[in-house]
C-alpha cells in the first residue's frame, strides 16, 4: 500500500500552522535573564537561561516523582532535575490512572514553573481595581494589611464571618485552603462545581449513587454524546478508548453538534442539535422498552420505580420519530443504536462525560443517561460503568469553631414559593459548592441577606471562568478586600487588593491522595525544586497569615459573640477535697481564655509540614511513605503486581484482582437501586423523572448563531493561556463558522469578526469549516485575557465568557453555557 503524504499540504492541527509563520522565538532562550521587568519591578534571575537535556554536562541529575497540575487529572510524572533545573517531565509508568503518559500540557509544565510572568512577591494594590498596579511588599506587610482590613470589616459586621466569601479552583491543595474557610467560619463557599460538572455529578449521584468511572478498556460499544475524549483528555479514559476504536474492539458512536477529533475516531457521528441530547436518550429508552431489549434480570434486581418510568416514557410518546425533528438524528439511526447498545450490554457504555452544564435540562439528561445505562445492566461490571475500590488513607482532624454571629450561606428563599416549586431564587437545591452565577448576580442586585465585603480567592479565576465577564468585573470592584492566592497574574488577580504568590506544583508537596477505580492506588505530588522567588506553598502561606490573623479574629469574636463571652465567664472553681478544704486556686480568666482560644486557634490548622501530614495519612501501610517519595505511587503488593509487559503496556494488578464489580451490580444509592422516580425532587419543583419540555427545543432566530464553547488538548481553560510552548501549538483561538455561510457573508479564513450577544462583544478571527452547522458557531474557552501582566495571553484571541449570557440551570443554579445566540459581523 502506498500513501502520498506531504506535510505542507496539511493544515497543522485545526488552524495553527496557516496562521503564524515561523516566529524566531527560541524555546530555550525564552527564559533568558533579560532584566524583564514585571509590574512589581522584579527580575527573573531565578529563571534558567536554557532548558534541554541535551548538554550532558550536568553534575547532578535527580529524577523526582510528582503529579501533574496542568489540568485536573493528576497524571503521574517524573521530573528530571539537572543541577537544580527541571529539564524534562516524563510520564511515570507506575501510576494506574495515567498509565505512562503525559499529554502536551503535562509536558509543558516546565514553562509554568519558569514562566517569566509568574507572581513572584506579595503585592498590595496601588492603582484602581482592575488596573493591575501594585507595589511589592514583604510577606509580613501583606499579612498585616490583610489582618487590619479583615478585622475592620468583621468589627463593623459584628463578627458575621459570612461577610467574607471564600472561593477556590480545583486542585490537590483546595482542601488545605478549605480548612481556612472552615476555621474562619464563613457560610459562603463557592468552587468550580457550578461552572463545571455539578449537574453531571449530581445527576448520576441521585440516580445510581455516585459519579461512576467508565471501563473503556473493555467496553465493546460506546455512545459518547457531548463529550470529547480525543481533545478533552481524561486519564485513563482517553488512553483506554482510542487504542480500540476504528474496528479494533470498541464501536464508538459520537454525538456532537460539532465534528470533533472524537468524531474523527468514531464509527458514526451524529450531528445533534445543541441541547437536545435528552430527547435522544429518551427515544433510545423508548425503543429499548417497547422492544423489550432491556436486561430484565438486572432491572428486576436493581431498579426502583421502573414501571412508573416505563409508563412515563411510553405514554409521553418519546419515540424515535418524535425525537427526529427535535434532535436532527434520524429515527432509524436511533432504533439501530438502541438495538446495538443492548446487544453489546452489559459491555456497552453511554459515556457519562465530565463537562460544564451546556443546556438547562442537563440534570435531567444525566438522569436519563444513567437509567438507560442501567437498562443494559452495565453498572458495576467489566466493560460498563464501574465504582471500583479505594485504598483507604487516614484523614486529619480540622477545626470548625462555632461562631454565634456567623450567618448561614447567602441564599435567597423565594417568598411566594408554592408547594412543588423551587424554594430558592436561583436553584431548587443548594449544593456544597453553591451557584456561582446566582451568588454573583444576587450580590450585584443587592439582594444579599447581609453584607459580603471581603473575599479570599485561591487559584480561581472568576473573571475568565464564568459567563458574563462584565458582571464579574463589577462584582470584584465592589468587594472591599479581595485577597488572591495564585501563581499567575490572572485577570482576577488584577482586581486584588492583596496578592499572595503561591509556588507552582513542581515546587511543593501536596496532600497525598487516594485514587479509586478498577486499579486503585495512592499517589503523591512531591516537591521537585525549591520555590522560586519569594513564592510559598499554600500551607506555608496560611501558616504565616494565621500567625497574624488568628488572635485578632478571636478578639472580635470575644467582642460580639455572647456564647463565647458566657463561656469565658465560667471559670472552673477550685476543687474541694473530702475534708471540705479548697485545693489549688481555681481557674484564672487568663487560663480560661487559653482554653477557649484553643477551639478558635487557626494556627493549629497549618502547623505541620505537608510531608509530615502525608506520612501520617499512609501510616497504616508499611513502606508506603517511602514508596510515595521514591516512586510517587503506592498500593498494597505493588512491588509484586507491577510489571512492564511491553513497550506500551504495564500491569498494575493481575486481571482477577481488578475491581470491576464490587457491589454485585447494585448501585451506591441508599436503596442500592437505580432510582427512576425521585419524589423528593418533585417537592422542589424538579421533574421526578426525566421529562422533555417544549422550551428545551433548539431554535435560533434568523441572522443569529448559537454560540458553543469547549475544551481541547493543548490548553486547560484559562490556566495555561500564558504557557509559551502550548501557545506555540495553538497561537490563538478561532471562531468556527460554517464554510458556506462564511462564503455567503464574504468571510475568509483569518478575517476578524465581531461577535455580539446581549451581554458583550469580542473580536476573534474566523475559521470557516464544514465541521459546524450553518446556524452555530464555536470557539475554544480560555483565550482573550485582559491582564497586561500576561505577555503571551494578553488580548490574545477571544474570551467566550465576555459574550456568554448568564443563564442558570434550574436545579443547582449551574451556568448553562450553550444557551446564548450571537450576531456576527466582519470588522
Amino acid at each position, binding site marked *: *500500500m502506498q500513501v502520498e503524504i506531504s506535510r505542507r499540504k496539511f493544515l497543522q492541527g485545526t488552524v495553527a500552522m496557516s496562521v503564524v509563520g515561523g516566529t524566531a522565538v*527560541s524555546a530555550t532562550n525564552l527564559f533568558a535573564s533579560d532584566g524583564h521587568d514585571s509590574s512589581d519591578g522584579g527580575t527573573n534571575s531565578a529563571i534558567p537561561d536554557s532548558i534541554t*537535556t541535551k548538554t*550532558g554536562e550536568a553534575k547532578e541529575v535527580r529524577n523526582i516523582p510528582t503529579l501533574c497540575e496542568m489540568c485536573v487529572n493528576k497524571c503521574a510524572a517524573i521530573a528530571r532535575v539537572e543541577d537544580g533545573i527541571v529539564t524534562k517531565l516524563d510520564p511515570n509508568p507506575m501510576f494506574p490512572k495515567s498509565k505512562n503518559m503525559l499529554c502536551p500540557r*503535562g509536558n509543558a509544565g516546565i514553562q509554568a514553573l519558569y514562566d517569566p510572568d509568574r507572581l513572584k512577591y506579595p503585592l498590595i494594590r496601588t492603582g484602581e481595581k482592575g488596573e493591575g498596579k501594585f507595589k511589592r511588599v514583604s510577606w509580613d506587610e501583606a499579612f498585616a494589611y490583610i489582618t487590619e482590613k479583615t478585622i475592620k470589616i468583621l468589627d463593623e459586621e459584628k463578627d458575621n464571618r459570612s461577610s467574607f466569601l471564600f472561593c477556590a479552583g480545583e486542585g490537590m491543595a483546595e482542601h488545605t485552603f478549605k480548612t481556612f474557610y472552615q476555621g474562619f467560619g464563613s457560610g459562603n463557599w463557592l468552587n468550580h462545581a457550578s461552572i463545571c460538572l455539578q449537574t453531571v455529578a449530581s445527576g448520576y449521584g441521585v440516580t445510581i449513587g455516585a459519579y461512576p468511572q467508565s471501563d473503556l478498556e473493555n467496553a465493546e460499544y460506546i455512545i459518547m454524546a457531548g463529550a470529547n475524549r480525543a481533545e478533552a483528555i481524561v486519564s485513563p479514559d482517553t488512553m483506554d478508548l482510542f487504542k480500540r476504536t476504528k474496528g479494533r474492539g470498541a464501536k464508538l458512536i459520537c454525538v456532537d453538534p460539532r465534528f470533533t477529533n472524537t468524531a474523527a475516531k468514531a464509527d458514526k457521528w451524529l450531528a445533534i442539535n445543541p441541547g437536545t441530547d435528552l430527547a435522544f436518550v429518551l427515544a433510545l429508552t423508548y425503543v429499548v422498552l417497547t422492544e423489550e431489549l432491556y436486561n430484565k434480570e438486572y432491572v428486576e434486581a436493581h431498579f426502583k420505580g421502573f414501571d412508573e418510568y416505563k409508563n412515563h416514557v411510553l405514554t409521553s410518546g418519546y419515540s424515535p420519530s418524535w425525537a427526529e425533528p427535535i434532535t436532527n438524528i434520524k429515527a432509524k439511526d436511533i432504533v439501530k443504536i438502541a438495538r446495538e447498545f443492548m446487544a453489546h450490554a452489559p459491555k456497552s457504555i453511554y459515556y457519562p462525560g465530565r463537562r460544564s452544564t451546556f443546556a438547562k435540562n442537563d440534570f435531567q439528561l444525566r438522569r436519563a443517561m444513567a437509567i438507560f445505562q442501567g437498562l443494559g445492566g452495565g453498572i458495576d461490571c467489566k466493560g460498563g460503568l464501574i465504582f471500583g475500590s479505594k485504598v483507604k488513607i487516614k484523614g486529619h482532624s480540622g477545626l470548625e469553631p462555632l461562631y454565634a454571629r456567623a450567618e448561614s450561606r447567602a441564599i435567597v428563599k423565594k417568598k411566594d414559593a408554592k408547594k412543588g416549586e423551587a424554594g430558592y431564587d436561583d436553584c431548587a437545591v443548594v449544593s456544597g459548592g453553591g451557584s456561582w452565577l446566582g451568588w454573583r448576580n444576587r450580590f450585584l442586585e443587592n439582594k444579599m441577606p447581609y453584607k459580603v465585603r471581603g473575599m479570599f480567592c485561591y487559584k480561581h479565576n472568576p473573571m475568565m471562568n464564568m459567563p458574563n465577564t462584565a458582571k464579574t468585573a463589577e462584582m470584584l470592584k465592589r468587594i472591599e478586600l479581595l485577597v488572591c492566592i495564585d501563581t499567575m497574574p490572572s485577570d482576577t488577580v488584577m482586581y486584588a487588593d492583596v496578592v499572595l504568590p503561591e509556588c507552582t506544583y513542581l515546587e511543593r508537596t501536596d496532600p497525598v491522595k487516594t485514587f479509586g477505580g478498577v486499579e486503585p492506588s495512592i499517589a503523591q505530588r512531591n516537591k521537585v525544586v525549591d520555590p522560586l522567588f519569594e513564592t510559598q506553598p499554600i500551607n506555608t502561606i496560611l501558616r504565616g497569615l494565621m500567625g497574624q490573623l488568628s488572635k485578632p479574629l478571636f478578639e472580635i469574636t470575644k467582642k460580639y459573640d455572647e456564647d463565647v463571652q458566657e463561656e469565658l465567664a465560667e471559670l472552673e472553681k477550685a476543687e474541694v477535697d473530702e475534708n471540705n478544704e479548697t485545693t489549688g486556686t481555681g481557674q484564672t480568666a487568663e487560663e480560661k481564655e487559653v482554653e477557649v482560644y484553643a477551639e478558635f486557634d487557626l494556627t493549629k490548622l497549618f502547623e505541620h509540614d505537608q510531608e509530615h501530614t502525608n506520612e501520617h495519612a499512609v501510616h497504616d501501610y508499611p513502606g508506603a511513605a517511602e514508596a510515595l517519595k521514591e516512586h510517587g505511587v503506592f498500593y498494597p503488593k505493588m512491588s509484586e503486581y507491577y510489571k512492564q509487559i511491553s513497550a506500551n503496556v504495564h500491569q498494575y494488578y493481575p486481571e482477577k484482582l481488578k475491581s470491576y464489580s464490587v457491589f454485585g451490580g447494585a448501585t451506591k444509592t441508599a436503596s442500592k437501586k437505580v432510582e427512576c422516580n425521585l419524589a423528593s425532587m418533585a417537592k422542589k419543583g424538579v421533574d421526578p423523572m426525566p421529562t422533555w419540555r417544549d422550551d428545551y427545543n433548539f431554535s435560533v432566530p434568523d441572522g443569529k448563531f448559537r454560540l458553543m464553547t469547549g475544551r481541547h*488538548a493543548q490548553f486547560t481553560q484559562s490556566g495555561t493561556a500564558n504557557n509559551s510552548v502550548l501557545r506555540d501549538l495553538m497561537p490563538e483561538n478561532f471562531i468556527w463558522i*460554517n464554510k458556506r455561510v462564511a462564503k455567503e457573508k464574504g468571510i475568509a479564513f483569518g478575517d476578524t469578526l465581531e461577535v455580539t450577544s446581549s451581554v458583550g462583544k469580542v473580536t476573534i478571527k474566523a475559521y470557516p469549516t464544514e465541521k459546524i452547522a450553518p446556524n452555530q458557531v464555536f470557539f475554544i474557552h480560555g483565550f482573550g485575557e485582559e491582564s497586561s501582566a500576561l505577555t503571551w495571553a494578553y488580548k490574545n484571541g477571544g474570551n467566550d465568557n465576555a459574550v456568554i449570557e448568564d443563564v442558570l440551570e434550574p436545579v443547582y443554579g449551574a451556568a448553562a453555557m450553550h444557551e446564548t445566540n450571537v450576531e456576527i459581523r466582519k470588522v
Partner: protein
Amino acid sequence: MARYGMALDYKNCINCKACEVACKEENGVTLGADKHRIWVGVKEIEGEYPFLSISSSTFMPSQCQHCDDAPCQMVCPTNATYFDENRVVRVNTDQCILCSYCMVACPYDARFVDDRTMTVDKCNFCSDTRLAQGKTTTACQNTCPTKVRTFGDLDDPESEISELLRTRDHFSLKAHLGTNPKLFYLT
C-alpha cells in the same frame, strides 16, 4: 550497534500533540510553527455538514523516516548528514553549511533550520539525549497518551518492533521512491 526503527499504530493518534511538546522539551527545539522535528498531519475534512466523511479525517503522526537509502544523506556535500552506528540519520552541525540541499531532497519534509546554530535540524530518535542517557526509547514514544509508537531494533528478531512487523499489516510513506523508510504505519 542496532538498526533503529519505529512502528506507528497511527489509528490511535488523536492529534493531541503531546509528542511535539515532549520532543521540543527533550531536545531544546526552538518555538515556531515551522520548527517541528515531529508533527501530526491533518487533512481538511471532505463533505458538507452534516454529511462529512469520517474516513477523510485521519491523523498521520510523522517525523524523519530515517530512510535506509536517505536522499538527504546522498546529496549532502559536506557529509554533515550521516548514518550513525545505529543507522539513525544524524546531522553534524559543525559540518553543516546550510546549503539546504537536504531540505529539498527530503521527500517527507522532515528537515528545518535551527535559527540558533543556522544549521539544519531534524529528528534523531533522541540519540544525543535519551539514548545517550541510557534510556531505551524516544520522548515521543514515551509520552504518547494513546501509545502510537513502538521503537526498537529492526535487526533484532527478538525485538517487539520486529514481532509487530512480522504479524501486523503495515505500509511505508512514499514507498515507491525507494528510500526504504524505517517508519512503519500499522494498519
